[in-house]
């Protein structure tokens, strides 16, 4: 309950136009974890994954684990956050999995600016991150996180929305819609993902090669 209240306080304090893009939450049905610098992230995410394992159909395979671990790692590696939240909900009736990840850190456009990566608008910076642009270019094992997350979302016929500072990207299949938010900006990054339950067991690995 404390985590839910904390999350709602953060969301309620956002500008109205940002809140409109984020949408409303059916909170009691979400499982939520809160991350801050004092917590062991691996331990907290393990709690979440163990809970999810009991609730979602086995046909998802390791796809949900993949998405949550990559996005959590991105927060830890890049965002310099104070607070981050991961929310999940499986709707049995709709057969839909919802994942929401929010951090109040630096945002993708700001991290790119800090590393002299040029872009024209914030939505373009998000698109570049989605295509594998990384600030850790000295390490060739980097730049796979958001790009491969998108591949897994596609494999599940899912949808993903990314809001970071003044940019918004909405992805469904191969369609990517971009919006620039104007004056009001989000401090941090908000990602929401909606996934259909696969009818047959999904092996994510061929999609990632």
């Amino acid at each position, binding site marked *: 309950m404390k985590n839910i209240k904390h999350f709602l306080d953060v969301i309620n304090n956002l500008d109205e136009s940002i809140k409109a893009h984020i949408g409303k939450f059916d909170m009691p049905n979400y499982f939520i974890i809160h991350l801050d610098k004092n917590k062991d*992230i*691996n*331990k907290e*995410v*393990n709690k979440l*994954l*163990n809970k999810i394992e009991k609730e979602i159909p086995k046909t998802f395979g*390791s796809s949900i*684990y*993949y998405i*949550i*671990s*990559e996005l*959590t*790692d991105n927060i*830890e*590696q890049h965002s310099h956050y104070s607070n981050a939240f991961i929310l999940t909900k499986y709707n049995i009736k709709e057969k839909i999995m919802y994942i929401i990840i929010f951090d109040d850190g630096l945002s993708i456009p700001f991290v790119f600016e800090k590393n002299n990566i040029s872009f024209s608008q914030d939505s373009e910076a998000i698109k570049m991150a989605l295509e594998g642009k990384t600030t850790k270019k000295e*390490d*060739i*094992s980097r730049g*796979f*996180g958001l790009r*491969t997350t998108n591949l897994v979302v596609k494999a599940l016929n899912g949808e993903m929305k990314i809001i970071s500072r003044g940019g918004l990207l909405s992805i469904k299949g191969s369609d990517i819609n971009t919006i620039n938010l104007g004056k009001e900006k989000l401090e941090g990054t908000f990602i929401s993902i909606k996934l259909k339950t696969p009818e047959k067991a999904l*092996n994510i*690995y061929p999609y*990632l*090669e």
Partner: protein
Amino acid sequence: MVKKISLNNEFGENIVTRNSIAVFFKEKINSLKDDEIILNFIDIKFISRSCAAEYIKLKNESNKSIIEKNISEEVRSMFDLVIKQLRGVNFSFTKENPIIY
């Protein structure tokens, strides 16, 4: 001397963040006096792509002889994927076998 470490005791069932692997190598593996280390993957259900990449990179840099045991099919698939991705970007493996199955 050979040191055996259970990864489940260190991380739980899922190994999620790159930092947790980095801290494990710095504070555990590389500070051990033992030259040979056996890492037991029993009851590890999932390793993230970023952790698998960090693991391979740090194992590659370590002076220790590290041998993996009891790797599940799921974890093996992730290591195989990451090894393929790293070969694709010309990562230079100093060790003949990045992971020993």
